[in-house]
Structures are given as C-alpha cells and as structure tokens.
C-alpha cells in the first residue's frame, strides 16, 4: 500500500492505481460517457463463452449467463449505442473577481470546486470541445497545456505572513506527490474512548472517539459532525452536543450546543457542561449512547 495524494487532494493507493481513481470517477460523472471503460470490475468468472463476438462490444449484455450475478455495476442498463455527440459543456459561469459558479452551485475561486471537485470549464476549453464530433473513448481530462513559467511560479510560491507560511509548510511536511506511509495519517487518531449505541434504532453501533473535541449530532453538507447519528431523524441537523476530552486531567465532559435537540445524561437534562463517567448514558432524539472511556487515570496516551 502506497498512499499518495493527487493534485486535487484525494488520497489513493499508488500500488493499485496509476492515477487518482477519484479524479477519474469525477471526470466520468460529469461527462457521462456511453461506454464505461476502466471500471475495475471483477471479471465474471469464465462461464464457457460461446465464441468471441466479432465486434468488440462494450458490455456483453445478452451473453448467455446463467444468472445475472449482482456485480456492482455503475449502470446496469448502459445505452448500447454511443451517442453521436456528447452534450457540449457550457463554460463555467464567472462570478466576480476571478471566481466562478460550479454546476453544484458553489462559488469557487480555484480551478476545482471545493465541494464536488468539478473542474472549471474555461471559454477556451468549450471552444476546443466544439469541433469534436467523434465519440472518442475519453480519458480522464488532462490539463490542456503546460502552464507558463509565471503561473508555475505562482503555483509553488507563497507570499504572505510568516506565521501562515509556517503553518502551510508544516501542514505539508511530506510534499505533494511524495510517498506517505499510511501511519503518518493515523498519528492523531488515537482512541480516547467509545460511544456504544444501546437504543433499538442502531443497537450495538460503536462510535470511536478520537478527537479531543467531538461533535455529536446529524451531519449535512453544511454542518459536518464527528459522531453522526444520520439515521435518527429526530436529531436536528448539525452539532447538538460536544464531547470534550481534557488531556491534562484525563477527564471527559459533555456540553450542549444550544441547538434544537435536548440532550439527556442519565435521564437528566444537560443544561451545564457535565463530566462524563464510565457507563453514563447520553440520550438525544431516539438514540441512546453508552459512554466507555479508554483514557482515564489508569491510562492515557
């Protein structure tokens, strides 16, 4: 396993993929291709095939297979014929000051949408795309031309406050593209404790507590939370409570966030931050969680 990070900040295993598979998947999503080429599918184990059909067909749909084994296929009913022309992409809508609006609605400054990873489509790219009527099996889109020296310099250079430079330099101690060992990423992920669901809805589900500040609630795009009770619609979206670990005194605390959902600890409403002890029961919405600390007076990292 060789963990690599691509220019769009996706992590992937360089032993398995020559290029970032996330980018490839995104490129495929945004330009729906009639033919799915490089989906790494486990080949249906060689059932005695009649004979290699002359034309290389993308998917042997009507092959006499005994059972349509449910291999996870992206599109079960792929259109058999390639469409004559892919719908020309529209230029990304420019907003003020060099920013643009992504297809997902986000206003973006760089070349890729922070939210969905969609690349910016420039007027040049649209033009270049127009006179291409042939449905070619498209490779993941490559940056069209080599960047000029000026843009290259501005890409690698940082001008700004020293504090920010320090932070930026520290955040990429191993440079982009350099091979990282997966353990580099796990250093901060030491287990502090667990929350174990005991209510009927998700009985037995375990949430590992690894952050000194973990939010509990229900995630959505705008309000990500650490411990996500996403199945429980009686919990309001966003963080409803914060679970704190005090590494100095090796104690845990639970604090309500003034959000909509009431938090109960051992059936008492949580109004003030309260220290949590082993086997305390946290209730919010329909969910009840049992608190099991790992770090304590007896042990800590």
């Amino acid at each position, binding site marked *: 396993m060789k963990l690599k990070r691509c220019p769009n900040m996706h992590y992937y295993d360089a032993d398995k993929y020559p290029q970032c598979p996330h980018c490839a998947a995104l490129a495929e999503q945004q330009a729906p291709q009639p033919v799915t080429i490089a989906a790494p599918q486990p080949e249906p184990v060689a059932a005695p095939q009649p004979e290699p059909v002359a034309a290389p067909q993308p998917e042997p749909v009507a092959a006499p297979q005994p059972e349509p084994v449910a291999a996870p296929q992206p599109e079960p009913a792929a259109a058999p014929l390639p469409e004559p022309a892919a719908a020309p992409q529209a230029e990304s809508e420019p907003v003020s000051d060099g920013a643009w609006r992504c297809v997902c609605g986000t206003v973006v400054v760089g070349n890729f949408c922070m939210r969905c990873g969609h690349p910016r489509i420039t007027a040049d790219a649209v033009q270049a795309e127009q006179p291409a009527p042939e449905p070619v099996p498209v490779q993941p889109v490559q940056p069209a031309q080599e960047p000029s*020296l*000026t843009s*290259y*310099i501005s*890409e*690698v*250079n*940082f*001008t*700004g*406050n*020293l504090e920010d*430079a*320090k932070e*930026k*330099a*520290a955040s*990429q*101690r*191993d*440079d*982009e593209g350099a091979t990282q060992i997966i353990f580099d990423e796990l250093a901060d992920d030491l287990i502090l404790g667990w929350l174990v669901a005991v209510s009927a809805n998700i009985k037995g589900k375990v949430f590992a507590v690894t952050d000194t500040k973990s939010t509990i609630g229900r995630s959505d795009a705008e309000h990500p939370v650490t411990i996500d009770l996403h199945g429980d619609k009686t919990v309001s979206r966003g963080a409803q409570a914060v679970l704190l670990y005090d590494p100095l005194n090796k104690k845990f605390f639970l604090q309500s966030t003034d959000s909509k959902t009431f938090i109960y600890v051992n059936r008492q409403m949580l109004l003030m931050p309260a220290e949590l002890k082993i086997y305390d029961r946290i209730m919010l919405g329909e969910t009840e969680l049992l608190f099991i600390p790992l770090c304590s007076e007896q042990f800590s990292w």
Partner: protein
Amino acid sequence: MLCEIRSFIGTRTYQEDAAEFCETEQGLFAAVCDGVGSRADGGASSRLCVSRFIEAFKEGFTGSYPAFIVDAAERIDREIYEEFGERCGTTAVTVYISGHSLYWLSVGDSRLYIYRNGRLKQITTDHDYAYVIGLRLKKNLIDAATYQAEQRKGSRLASYFGMNGIDIVDVSMQPLLLEQNDVLLLTTDGLYKKIGDEQIADILRTHTRADVAADCLIHAVRQSEGAADNTTVAVIRYDTEEQK
C-alpha cells in the same frame, strides 16, 4: 554547479551587503542579504544572517525543506533583533537546489530571478511599503487617495530580518523544477534599481558563463551614472552535465 558571487560597495562608506554559498550532500545553498539601518549594524546584521543560514544548512535537515527554512528564518530574525535591537536589520534571499528542484525563501526587497529560454522572470515579491499599500488598496482597506499619498514612502522595507516577527515572506511550498541552462540570479536592490530587467536579461543572454555574467552585472552598475548603492549578485547556472 557553482555559485558566482560579486559585490560592489558603490558610492557608500559601508558595505552592508553580505553573501555566501555552500554545498553539502543535500545540495547547494546560497544566501544574499542587504543590511539596513542607520549605524554600521546594518552590515553586521546581514553578515550574521548569512552565516546563520549557512550554519543551519550545513547542519542538515530532515523532512520538508520549506518547513526547515521557515523555522530557520524565524529563529534568525529573533537573534538579529536581540543582537542589534530596533532600527536595523537585513533582507535575505536564499535558494536551495537539490537535483533539479529549486526552493527559495525571501524576506525584504532583494530578488530572485530566473532566466530561462531568453526570458528573465522575477520569482520573488519585493516586500516594500508599495507592496503593502497595493495589497490594502486591493482589499479596500484604504482608498485611492490614501494609496497615492502613501506612494512616496513606497520604497521603504515592509518586512526584514531583525523586526522580531517577520511579517511577509516569499517561500516556495513546492519545488520549481529547473531545466538545463536555467540561470538563477540573487541580487540586492543595488542592481535592479540601477539597471533594469532588460539590461540584466541582455547580460545573461550574452554571457552564458556564470562568472562572466556576474562580473558584467557589477560592471554595468559601475558604469552607470550617479550614486550607486551597495550591490551584490549571486549567479548560478544550472547545468546538469557539469554536475557529473
């Protein structure tokens, strides 16, 4: 690979520029500094800055170079401040070349240029007051009238070693990959305030040897009329064949 350094005192009493380079297993490092300050401490600041950078580089580093050099810069800034106090300091432009990767760090108005395929390109930003008010104008923190009025102070240094908390830096967060025959020029403001980018480019175009080019740059400053500031240049020609 060699680094050719030349200095010229100009028409000043003191030489406050300092420069040095060294080569270790990790690669080539060069620093050019321009001391500032009303007393002779300007020159002492720049010499201290250069030698501290060289020492730090010779000690070697593990992990990311940008993190190493930014840490070193922070430390050296504090030392210069503690040693010489307020009202003096130094600029610094440094490069590090390892294989064909180029890294830099610059504080102040000394410059790093790259000359590639007949073209001269300034890599670093001048951290002078003109840069600061330009930034403030862009962010609507000041109006156009203030911007105009402040222009006369434009050439003052806005960031330097010895200010006890460097404000602005230019750092390469990732390497710039060098190409065969790229020429790097580190210089104090004595050069570019006297002869323009075009003349610098002409000299680098005419003289491909680093030592000759460095001599000619200094010569051009000597030949130009009027008072001349301290001028220091370091010229590095990236030649992969020469390396082996």
